[in-house]
């Protein structure tokens, strides 16, 4: 039996010259396969306000990925996503993400990752890199 979940998110316009409300609803499916877990996300967004010029009011996309648990405290994660652009006149975005997850301590997790664009469309990044730090208490 796979894990089923939903995630609803609302953006409030509290920031600099911000306006409008955005809402995103994501459906999540996760299933253990082999030494890891397979994920599938699908989402729809209603975008409002004028934070983005010529904003696409209805956006959508999906992601699919796999977490490969190499050790008790270390895993590799790879995923692909395809989503509509934020602006009406732009093409869809295709990208690949590769990241790792390291449980440094019981309450601390560090996860560096990179992003590789798979097309030359206006909103697709060529490359990206970053890190996520998570502390529970």
């Amino acid at each position: 039996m796979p894990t089923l979940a939903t995630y609803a998110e609302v953006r409030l316009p509290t920031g600099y010259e911000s306006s409008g409300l955005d809402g995103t609803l994501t459906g999540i499916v996760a299933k253990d396969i082999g030494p890891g877990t397979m994920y599938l996300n699908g989402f729809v967004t209603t975008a409002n306000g004028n934070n983005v010029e010529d904003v696409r009011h209805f956006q959508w996309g999906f992601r699919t990925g796999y977490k490969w648990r190499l050790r008790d405290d270390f895993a590799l994660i790879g995923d692909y996503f395809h989503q509509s652009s934020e602006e009406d006149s732009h093409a869809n975005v295709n990208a690949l993400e590769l990241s790792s997850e390291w449980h440094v301590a019981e309450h601390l997790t560090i996860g560096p990752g990179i992003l590789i664009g798979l097309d030359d469309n206006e909103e697709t990044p060529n490359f990206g890199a970053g890190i996520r730090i998570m502390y529970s208490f």
Partner: protein
Amino acid sequence: MESDVNSESERIPAVSIKDKSMFGSESRFFTVAAFFLFAGVAVAQSQYPRDGYPAKGNQTRAVRGYANDAQPMQLVQADDSRSPSRQSAQTTDEKASSTSETKSRLTEDPVTARQSVDSYCSLEDGQPGDPGTFELQLEFGWLTTSGSHDPALWRGELQYNPDGTDFLRNMQLTLGVPLEMGLGGVQGNGDIELGWQQR
């Protein structure tokens, strides 16, 4: 006199525009409402016994929960699944059935330990954290795109995992603030994002 009248008439539209924008009282209302929502859920859930999961350190959740529990004893005993003896048995069974993977992460249930994703990627894992805890998540990133500014991104997110009923233990509430760094004024910088995940 004419100059006074003109300056007064110029000021009136400026005030009305400010009142119409979402940057004024409405956004402050949303912010305050969000704060009280999180605080209310946190206070309400602190009254529940924390059952079913091992606790941090050497102390079990059941022992810690009942030691601090403010509920009448009759109510606690009426529910067999929450009795201390049943709790001890459940905790023992969970420990016995847990894999070696979860031994290093005793505060999470086995499914969450296997399926949670805490790395720099856009995947949503659908897993809440340990019930009754908070998680602070910080993200730093950089993107390069042809023909446009390369943004440096920062995102701070506070996650709360309620405790209590099964429904609440499978819930996660988030409060996030994404920022784009390196530019003086980015429209939308400082927006608040509220999330509700339900497994």
